[in-house]
């Protein structure tokens, strides 16, 4: 796995994104098409932005790995564990399964869809979205729009997206997986 260090400064987002994309394109040039390129860029920008919001002055490590045409993009830090005030409860770690039925958490959403988390175990959450086909948009739809898109963007741009918290080391890891197709 190749690792990149993010210093958690806004000015570093784009140069690091470009650096990582260049690395991926060199490593997997035959399987990164325009769509995959967009998804990779979007995921990187949102992971780095998420880090800026939650990490302050500390550093964050971005890991890149390619196995069997699956691209793994991970973000690792030792900041606060993921905290989300969901519709059902405030997420605290370790997660307690009994709070959630059926092991799924609605995180946020609007008429177009909901970001959900599936509890894999007490220290792991797998994100996914439930999308709705909205044909008619009126004022009420707009007034109800969600204004927090970060995790939802990563979930939609990924083929799989999860978060793990290691209580013994305090390490938080977000991992996005993209299935690349041979051109």
């Amino acid at each position, binding site marked *: 796995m190749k690792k990149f260090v993010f210093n958690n400064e*806004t*000015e570093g*987002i*784009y140069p690091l*994104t470009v650096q990582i994309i260049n690395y991926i394109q060199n490593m997997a040039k035959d399987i990164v098409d*325009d769509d995959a390129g*967009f998804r990779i*860029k*979007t995921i990187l*920008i*949102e992971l780095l*932005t998420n880090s*800026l*919001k939650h990490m302050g002055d500390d550093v964050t490590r971005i890991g890149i790995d390619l196995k069997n045409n699956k691209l793994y993009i991970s973000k690792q830090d030792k900041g606060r564990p993921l905290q989300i005030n969901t519709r059902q409860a405030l997420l605290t770690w370790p997660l307690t399964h009994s709070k959630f039925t059926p092991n799924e958490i609605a995180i946020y959403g609007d008429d*177009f*869809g909901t970001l959900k988390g599936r509890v894999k175990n007490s220290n792991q959450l797998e994100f996914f979205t439930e*999308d709705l086909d*909205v044909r008619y*948009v009126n*004022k009420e*739809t*707009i*007034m109800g*729009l*969600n*204004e*927090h*898109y*970060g995790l*939802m*963007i990563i979930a*939609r*741009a990924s083929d799989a997206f999860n978060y793990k918290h290691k209580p013994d080391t305090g390490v938080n890891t977000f991992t996005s997986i993209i299935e690349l197709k041979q051109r």
Partner: protein
Amino acid sequence: MILQTHLLNNALIADILLKEANLGNAEQFKSELMSLINKGNKYVIVNFEQVIYVDSSFLGALVSALKLAMNSGGDIAVVGLNNDIRSLFQLVRLDKVFRIYTNTQEALTGA
């Protein structure tokens, strides 16, 4: 200053003077855009021509301003999106919410 504005026909054109539209400037963008709406501008065309990428914070700010515009009987259109930004709008379904035009002239025709 993030937005440079000028009136054209019945619309206010607001050019974003940024290359990177991100967490570092989203709040200021929201504040400037809301101020334009609060001054009575009903139809604001936000021009992204100079912007190379947009993050979730900036999109949230844009949505927040749209809600204010709708409550004031106005609207916001966006123009000058590059391919990746347009794809991002589609990813979060904002292409169904904002009127998206290729350029200002096209947006004025739709105004």
